[in-house]
């Protein structure tokens, strides 16, 4: 799997390269600024991009903007955005096209190598990887909204993990319940969030989107 990596801090970039290589990703390019990232994404056509939000030369949200721009040119291009802090606003922008293949994680998540790599793989295969911090903010806020109030506490836990982008198997493992139970909970959640049943793989993304757009 070919990765384009954009991170301006040398130590972190170097560490990420090593880590990704250790998990048998191929580093197509590792760049440290916005314009080079744009060029790399266009020319190298990677399978997934791992991008820092704040990049030179503007040191604003240049990384995020480059990634969004690249996704407009090539819809569905998997992008995992890393940031020193997480904002719902950015999460919304990433999820806005409903195409999936996006992730938004705190940089600290890199410390948990297995989980981080799992996130990269999920994004690369068209899923989502949302930082628990974003989801927690949502859950605590939505807790007052009506559709959320209808969820049982177990369903809320499942919703939280699902919104992060975990698979049923991963959720089952984390909550120490069977996959069948998870499937039951998720279909309950879709019902309560009024998401019509469909075979679309992106229903989980839609669930997060619906979640974000409520209120």
């Amino acid at each position, binding site marked *: 799997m070919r990765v384009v990596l954009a991170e301006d801090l040398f130590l972190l970039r170097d560490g990420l390269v090593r880590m990704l290589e250790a998990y048998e990703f191929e580093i197509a390019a590792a760049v440290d600024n916005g314009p080079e990232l744009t060029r790399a994404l266009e020319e190298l056509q990677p399978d997934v991009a791992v991008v820092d939000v704040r990049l030179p030369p503007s040191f604003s949200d240049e990384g995020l903007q480059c990634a969004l721009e690249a996704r407009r040119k090539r819809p569905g291009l998997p992008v995992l955005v890393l940031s020193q802090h997480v904002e719902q*606003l950015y999460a919304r922008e990433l999820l806005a096209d409903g195409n999936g293949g996006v992730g938004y994680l705190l940089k*600290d998540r890199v410390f948990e190598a297995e989980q981080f790599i799992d996130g990269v793989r999920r994004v690369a295969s068209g899923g989502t990887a949302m930082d628990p911090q974003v989801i927690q903010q949502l859950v605590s806020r939505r807790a*007052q909204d009506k559709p959320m109030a209808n969820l049982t506490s177990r369903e809320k836990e499942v919703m939280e993990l699902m919104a992060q982008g975990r698979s049923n198997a991963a959720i089952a493992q984390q909550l120490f319940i069977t996959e069948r139970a998870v499937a039951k909970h998720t279909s309950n959640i879709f019902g309560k969030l009024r998401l019509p049943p469909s075979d679309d793989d992106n229903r989980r993304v839609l669930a997060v989107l619906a979640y974000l757009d409520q209120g």
Partner: protein
Amino acid sequence: MSSIVDTPRSWRPPVRESLQAAARGVGLAALSIGASLALFIVTVLSVVFVVLGVGAFTTPAVLNTVRAHANRRRLLASEWAGIAIPSPYRPLPEQRPGAVGLVERTSQLLKDPATWRDILWLLVDAVAGFVTALLSFAVLVYGVEGVIMMFGLWEAVNNGYWYAFIPIKGYGSAVQAALLGLALIAASFYVNRYPLQAHFMIARLLIGPTRGAQLEQRVERLYETRHDAVDSSAAELRRIERDLHDGAQARLVAMGMSLGTVEALIERDPAKAKEILAQARSSSAEALTELRDLVRGIHPPVLAERGLGDAAKALALRMQIPVEVDVELTGRFQEPVESAAYFAISEVLTNAAKHSGADRIWLDIHHSRDAGGMLRIAVTDNGRGGADLEKGTGMKGIERRLGALDGVLALSSPEGGPTMVTIEIPCEQTEPR
């Protein structure tokens, strides 16, 4: 800066407006010739008697009355003619009790140039002020007189009376007088508000602040806000130092100690070492969280990355209550402006969510180019109202921070709501990046 603002004139019938101006003119004229003249005489006497000693005891009371009288005129100027006359007086310190206090107050009052201008104004007001105020009434009455001439009055004044430039000699000239009277009345409908405006302009010339007084007031204000700015930035630095010391720094020390223990244990008791390593890692995560919160408190990352509009939107997303955000900005602002505005919005939103009992908040942010550029922010909620600026310390801090940028914060919160907080900061928008 004071300026002439046109009175909000809907298409009121000019007749009503003219009659109103005439009535107001009479009132003003009475004030000018009555109150101003009387006050002028009393003031001059009181000030002269200061030399004899007696005046020192009466002067403060007399001058306070003069100021009240002038303030009343300032109020009328803005209400009736839309002419703003700012107050020019120097701020007075607390008055000490007893005779010493009175003498001191007298000397403070007499040292203020505005006092002398007030006295001059009293005299001018009694003469020029009186004439200009009466003018609108007089023109109308004189016009009416001309009309009455035609209806019989000419008999009484036959041959011995000039109406304006028309000697009344018979019915024919009386009709001429009536026509002139009608013309005067008609003209007064359209020009009657100008004498009043002239009256207030004269007042502004004398009881408005001179350039010197304006500068003095500005220096006074800058002195105060500079102090506030220095104080609050020192307090902010202390807070940051304390947070670092108690938070991230302590956790890093704990991590170092844990790692030291691990080093010692790693061969003897690997299981225990592993446990301590896990602790160290959670310490590092907590330290990061604390640093992140600290940074958010100093300069929020979204604000740095996206500017005020998006930062406000991000803030709204984090609120427990739905916030409707309406942003109309085309560029960014200087960092201190963005930062002060952001923290003001944050404080106001938090207050609204905590105390107002509202279930909806509206946040409006826009920039207008008038008056050299003004950033206007309005936060409205549908809560129960009754908020008070004096109650919370947070709002005071915000006011001080805005003050350093010449910004202001206004609160309108009647019992039963709604509460509306408006923030204005004079500033230029920079070009969008």
